[in-house]
């Protein structure tokens, strides 16, 4: 980045602007210089880079699950968006849910490890090849008591499975495992449900199954036990339709 060093006063002014300590009038004047003078603008950028390090000591705080859907709504909207052709209220809801609920999640939720799915052909879209959440399969699993145990949504376009377990940890210390159930009756282990909701990129091995599964199920496995990929060892405590939107 070369060039003559800025005068000391300008270095200070750039720092004051980055720190935001100037009065409104002084700040406006400095912004004009920032817009007009590349060297001054670079100095402001440099101060931003240095001073923003202070933020390292600010603890993170998850924003609510509504923020991300609000961002995407503002930017990409419903109407007029590239995928408007295959959009509808239900889909928009799940898209928002998938990104919001699992991306941020409440402390009471449980997370999990998941696998794959075959990307299904996307609905015809006459738009630029931009990837966005395109949930096509969802499931809500309830216990016999009617209590929701787990919600999940699958996006074949990105290979992401959004999983939000809602139940308490099992009193006996058993670990819930998620299964995909194929139309022919076969089952395939996806993985153990951990402590928090989150999103998993499905690996190629599970993809054919995830695109076709018609139901999901949860089994409770003893701690430290990984069941075979095609059959649970512990009791199946619930199953739910993995329905197409």
């Amino acid at each position, binding site marked *: 980045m070369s060039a003559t060093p800025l005068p000391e006063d300008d270095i200070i002014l750039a720092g004051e602007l980055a720190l935001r300590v100037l009065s409104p009038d002084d700040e406006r004047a400095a912004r004009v210089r920032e817009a007009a003078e590349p060297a001054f603008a670079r100095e402001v950028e440099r101060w931003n880079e240095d001073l923003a*390090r*202070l933020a390292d000591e600010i603890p993170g705080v998850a924003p609510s699950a509504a923020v991300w859907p609000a961002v995407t709504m503002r*930017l*990409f909207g419903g109407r007029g968006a590239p995928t408007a052709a295959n959009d509808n209220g239900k889909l928009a809801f799940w898209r928002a849910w998938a990104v919001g609920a699992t*991306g941020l999640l409440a402390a009471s939720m449980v997370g999990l490890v998941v696998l794959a799915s075959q990307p299904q052909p996307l609905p015809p879209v006459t738009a630029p090849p931009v990837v966005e959440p395109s949930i096509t399969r969802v499931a809500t699993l309830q216990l016999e008591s009617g209590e929701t145990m787990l919600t999940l949504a699958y996006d074949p376009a990105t290979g992401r499975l959004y999983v939000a377990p809602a139940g308490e940890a099992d009193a006996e210390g058993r670990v819930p495992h998620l299964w995909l159930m194929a139309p022919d009756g076969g089952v395939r282990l996806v993985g153990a449900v951990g402590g928090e909701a989150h999103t998993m990129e499905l690996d190629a091995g599970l993809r054919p199954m995830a695109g076709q599964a018609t139901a999901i199920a949860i089994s409770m496995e003893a701690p430290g036990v990984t069941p075979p990929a095609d059959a649970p060892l512990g009791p199946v405590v619930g199953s739910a339709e993995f329905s197409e939107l």
Partner: protein
Amino acid sequence: MTDAAMTRESLAQALTRVGQGDRSAFETVYRATSAKLMGVALRILHDRALAEDVVQETYVAVWNRAGSFDPGRASPITWLVTIARNRAIDRLRSAPMRVRTTPVEDAIDLADDAMPADARVEAADDARRLNVCLDELETRTRGAIRTAFFEGVTYEEVAERTSAPLGTVKSWIRRGLIKLRECLER
């Protein structure tokens, strides 16, 4: 794949892809950084709803401006933090009355600021270097710069808070900035 584990490099790559219109990368960036930006906005605004508004605005701005992100000049996280902090300060200054009704949290923040340097968590080398340089400053200068950064306040308000004359506060911070720059360049 924990979000926190994203490296600077992978985050920079994702942000670069956002600049090319990649929505999937945008979501990745959001998930990796929204808690940090929320923390920054909340620190300045002391109001969860306002802070969430600012986070929302920030990511709209990130989508629109990511094309100008230059990984050679800025780290992705400081680039994002700068946008969030500036937006939060703009909001603070547009609604000063509402935000000033939180004296208790202010008191907590002041206590935080009094924390000795060695008790602070210093994650990255760059942050450590900045703190080393800040620690070379006089206590009141360091305090004024930290208050300005974390509370998003102007010279005038720093002067009010420290009961020092405005001119004195200005010269503390200006001298502090010069020393800081010299130290950071060493």
